[in-house]
């Protein structure tokens, strides 16, 4: 007998099914009440069919327990079926079916805008590459945040990076997918996720380079060049799948704006301290700046100092 599990169910069942866990006094009381109810009539006693049906009040408790047990089994079976249906990671398996060669090819392709926009371009619905790119972006952001001394409370460092990157990838994908639905573009959600994910490759390259070499003009060159290339590719693919000038304009304008602005945001939000330091430099008399809040290793200090000197000399 499933005494343990039946306890939970018994408490949730209505009182009319009879509980076998009451003490004897209460049971006697109930049996007396049952007798009185029987005398009055069975109209409202449909729920007490167990006892009434068999006419044997002594067995009502046992039947109640069996019914409770059965209900528990059915519930458990349904729950495990639902769990195995929704928590089954095999749903995602087809999206991870890639070879390393394919991933490399797609990474390089994401920087090359297609020329043919009259023919719908093929987008691979794959999630491995985009997911890895998002994690790489997170790692690069952490690297950048630590060297530019942005966040003092470390607890939010990881959370901010993960939240930003995943939020951008999932949120902007969904938004553009919604716009694509409005503008009648032929693209599925997985394809959109894949497209935007591979578009982050340009961001990764740009940020990786400019977090280590702090030239402002270098960043702008990279922003326009590398960011622009990956945006152009995404835009071209979307244009090839949309009909109508207004729709194309809306969709691609939004995507281009969001993508480029995101890169700008990533660079400048995590860069403010170095900016501030560069602003205080005057001419060739540059004092090597002291990091107060976090001890940046002396080697990268030296690199920053030399780049700062170089910038000041060119100004």
């Amino acid at each position, binding site marked *: 007998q499933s005494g343990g599990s039946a306890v939970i169910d018994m408490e949730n069942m209505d009182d009319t099914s009879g509980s076998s866990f009451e003490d004897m006094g209460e049971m006697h009381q109930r049996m007396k009440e049952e007798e009185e109810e029987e005398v009055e009539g069975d109209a409202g006693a449909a729920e007490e069919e167990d006892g009434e049906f068999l006419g044997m009040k002594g067995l009502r408790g046992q039947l109640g327990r069996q019914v409770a047990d059965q209900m528990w089994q059915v519930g458990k079976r349904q729950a495990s079926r639902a769990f195995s249906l929704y928590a089954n990671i095999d749903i995602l398996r087809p999206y991870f079916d890639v070879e390393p060669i394919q991933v490399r090819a797609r990474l390089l392709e994401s920087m090359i805008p297609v020329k043919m926009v009259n023919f719908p371009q093929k987008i691979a619905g794959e999630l*491995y590459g985009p997911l890895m790119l998002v994690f790489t972006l997170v790692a690069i952001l952490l690297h950048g945040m630590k060297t530019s001394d942005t966040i003092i*409370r470390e607890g939010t460092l990881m959370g901010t990076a993960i939240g930003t990157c995943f939020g951008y990838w999932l949120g902007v994908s969904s938004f553009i997918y919604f716009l694509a639905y409005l503008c009648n573009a032929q693209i599925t959600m997985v394809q959109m996720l894949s497209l935007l994910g591979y578009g982050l490759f340009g961001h990764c390259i740009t940020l990786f380079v400019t977090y280590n070499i702090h030239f402002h003009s270098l960043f702008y060159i990279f922003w326009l060049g590398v960011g622009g290339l990956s945006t152009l590719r995404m835009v071209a693919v979307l244009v090839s799948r949309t009909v109508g000038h207004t729709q194309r304009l809306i969709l691609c304008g939004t995507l281009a704006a969001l993508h480029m602005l995101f890169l700008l945001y990533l660079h400048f939000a995590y860069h403010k301290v170095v900016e501030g330091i560069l602003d205080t430099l005057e001419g060739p008399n540059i004092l090597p700046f002291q990091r107060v*809040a976090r001890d940046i290793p002396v080697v990268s200090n030296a690199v920053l100092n030399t780049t700062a000197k170089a910038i000041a000399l060119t100004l």
Partner: protein
Amino acid sequence: FPGLTDVSISEDIPVEGEITVPVGSHSPDEDFSTLDEPVRETIMRDLKAVGKKFVHVMYPKKSSALLRDWDLWGPLVLCVSLALMLQGGSADSRDDGGPQFAEVFVIIWFGAVVITLNSKLLGGTISFFQSLCVLGYCVLPLTVAMLVCRLVLLAGSGTISFIIRLIVVIAMFGWSTLASTAFLADSQPPNRKALVVYPIFLFYFVISWMILTFTPQ
């Protein structure tokens, strides 16, 4: 009933199973018999198993001991010690170090779960907890690196100390990645090893970065 007077079992009827004599070391009867042993023996057995796995990580040969009897005690101990050692390095003196402990924990376990899911989705034959076990145990070299870094930082925090710490952390990072690859890559189809190794590389890179940029108050 004459047949019941003789209750011995005749020799030609095979009596299978381990009811009477625990012959196998993993028989279910073992639980029954280990109930009577002193607690010290139980703990020592678990500690020895964990220690053996540590040795396997430090000298990664292609053995399946780490995979066969997985346990999560080692990863827990390593994770907690790494998180404790990474405390107190915050820039803000008002920070009580609480978020750092949680941050390290979350990174290690969340990262390990993601890598495991990724390797399973790529067609790996390893089970969920086996993979968690391997990834957790391979944090051992990085914990050693953290210990060394702390000792080096006690001596001073100049350029020399940074270079020493950089070399140690890079070496241990390489060791961790190689060790976990040695255990995990075998369970993948041969042409997809690179796809599985890359997230592991990222994972240990993030942990190494946290160790390298740690500075005490």
